[in-house]
């Protein structure tokens, strides 16, 4: 096939992420086409509006990253996205993609519109071994121990918990606390069934209590970006961080080894359940015949076993197909794979809630984490309201 330029937009710009994207580009270029990189820095919140206006504005790119889930729903309904069912059938995605909920999120009215590339889970607590050593306490094995160790860390001049200023980090941390403390069922009741009563209930009150602890422990975090917060953990300036598995890429890039330099606790060491959100590529409907063909090639390439391994190793995420060999995976990744194979999984909030509700949630938690005068009770009341009006 003649070389076709395909512009791919995404927001993977941190060190680990760029390295991972490079793998995708390499694989695609190997098919004789050309990957035109359209990175937009500053997280999905900045990038998504730009992507959407380009698609709705009639100047679509060749392919674009979204979190799979509900972010692209309306674009699909408006007929702006390309139907990938033909590729999916040919490549037997239904059989290879696991967990199947990933493909379900790409399916609208029985047609498949996106190609999932990885599984990301939020439910990780990353701890700096060096920090705890300096504070003279054991590296905690679960959330409660961590909370208990906080005063010692503080005394040693170490920030116990790093939470970056971007709103999604606070909201994400809360979701993680919820799974760990209230469990899978409550999580599903609140976010899947939008049960406002449960959201106002005692189980969730416990979660808010924990969030209150987290808030106290994170006081004094003077960074914005998640990877800056991770960097605090890497350099031992902070004790720990609640962040998704993508943080692993940063540790890897800094040359740290799981177990010796840092410790990872899935499900905060309390409740070993992980969510299976992730990233997917969507393909806007293009008029150009050549580009459409290239889109199909890209979709195929993304799920190619080799690509999946190379990409996910760099990215620190899990591959979307169960049939690949991840011998090179590190400790933490193996823990994740393990949980995944046990089926202790939930869907990510991106898949369960609309962007609108997500945003409201982010507003609530970023305010909660920044404002000590907001009581957990008040916050819970507002949380219940958001759930009540969520769709």
């Amino acid at each position: 096939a003649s070389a076709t330029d395909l512009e791919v937009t995404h927001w993977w710009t941190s060190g680990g992420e760029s390295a991972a994207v490079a793998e995708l580009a390499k694989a695609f270029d190997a098919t004789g086409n050309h990957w035109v990189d359209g990175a937009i820095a500053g997280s999905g919140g900045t990038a998504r509006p730009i992507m959407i206006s380009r698609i709705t504005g009639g100047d679509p790119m060749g392919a674009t990253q979204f979190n799979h889930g509900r972010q692209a729903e309306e674009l699909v309904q408006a007929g702006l996205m390309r139907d990938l069912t033909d590729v999916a059938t040919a490549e037997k995605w239904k059989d290879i993609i696991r967990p199947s909920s990933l493909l379900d999120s790409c399916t609208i009215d029985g047609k498949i519109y996106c190609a999932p590339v990885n599984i990301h889970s939020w439910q990780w607590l990353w701890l700096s071994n060096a920090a705890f050593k300096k504070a003279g306490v054991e590296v905690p094995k679960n959330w409660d121990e961590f909370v208990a160790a906080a005063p010692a860390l503080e005394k040693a001049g170490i920030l116990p918990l790093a939470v970056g200023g971007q709103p999604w980090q606070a909201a994400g941390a809360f979701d993680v606390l919820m799974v760990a403390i209230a469990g899978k069922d409550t999580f599903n009741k609140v976010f899947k069934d939008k049960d406002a009563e449960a959201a106002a209930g005692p189980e969730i009150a416990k979660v808010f209590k924990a969030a209150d602890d987290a808030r106290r422990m994170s006081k004094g975090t003077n960074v914005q970006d998640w990877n800056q917060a991770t960097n605090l953990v890497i350099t031992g300036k902070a004790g720990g961080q609640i962040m998704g598995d993508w943080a692993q890429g940063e540790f890897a890039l800094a040359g740290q080894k799981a177990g010796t330099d840092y410790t990872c606790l899935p499900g905060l060491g309390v409740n070993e359940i992980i969510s299976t959100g992730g990233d997917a590529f969507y393909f806007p409907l293009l008029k150009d015949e050549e580009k459409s063909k290239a889109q199909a090639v890209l979709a195929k390439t993304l799920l190619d076993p080799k690509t999946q391994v190379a990409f996910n190793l760099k990215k620190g995420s899990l591959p979307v197909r169960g049939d690949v060999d991840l011998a090179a995976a590190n400790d933490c990744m193996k823990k994740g794979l393990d949980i995944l194979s046990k089926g202790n999984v939930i869907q990510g909030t991106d898949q369960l809630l609309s962007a609108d509700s997500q945003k409201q949630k982010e507003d609530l938690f970023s305010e909660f984490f920044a404002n000590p005068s907001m009581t957990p009770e008040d916050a819970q009341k507002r949380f219940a309201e958001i759930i009540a009006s969520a769709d």
Partner: protein
Amino acid sequence: MANIGTLNTTAAGIDAVSGRLGDGPTGPKPRPALSPRNIMLYGTLTIAALYYLLPLYVMVVTSLKGMPEIRLGNIFSPPMEVTFEPWVKAWAEACTGLNCDGLSRGFWNSVRITVPSVIISIAIASVNGYALANWRFKGSELFFSILIIGAFIPYQVMIYPIVIILREIGIYGTLTGLVIVHSIFGMPILTLLFRNYFVSLPEELFKAARVDGAGFWQIFLKIMLPMSLPIFVVAMILQVTGIWNDFLFGVVFTRPDTYPMTVQLNNIVNSVQGVKEYNVNMAATILTGLVPLIVYFVSGRLFVRGIAAGAVKG
């Protein structure tokens, strides 16, 4: 006329007294250089100047330091070891995603966006201002009022409709589209400036040219334009800075291969690879601000004059 003689002696008297100075103060009142007034005056100005210069100083100094020095140190201390590496990196090597060609690409994109946008928006606005000042017609003031009120509408309100309009015309995402957007949003303030300026030119000049037989365009090109340098400089500075510094439209109405420098800057600054490379960020920031700064430094004096002619008369 008998008394002419006596009066004349007074006149002659002038010559007699000259040369004789009385006692007491003479000549200019002494004004010591260190009078309280001067100390207050120059003291306040200097303190204010420091406040304005400080960030620039910090930017320059930081951009010349290596990362280790930054981590150790004091942002105000001069670099112990001057390095231009951050500049090189910011200009040619910094990465956003897979593209590691720094700001250089964005620079040329910005030039390609700014030059036509500035020329076209000024061309349109100057003609509009001229028509409003000298060729009023029924309704012209109404449209102008709408335009001016439009200047205060937050851009966010307009973005969506404009995306739709450009899409319908089929120029969304093209350079043409972006130039049009810049011309539209530059129009209110520029039109106001030009109108006020042309109103302040002597109306008789315009009348004389009409009597001489010159028409709308001839008067504009041959009479008005040559007299309007200051206001064109003001418009040019405003537009160059405005368009060069624009982020919102650049990000919404372009595609990555035509991203302007500010978007590139934002990408570089927000693409944190491990630690924030403040020195590179500062170098990138200075580089991005350089073009408007140079334009301003070169023509700042005319800017003030033009502001006086075009804005204050409002």
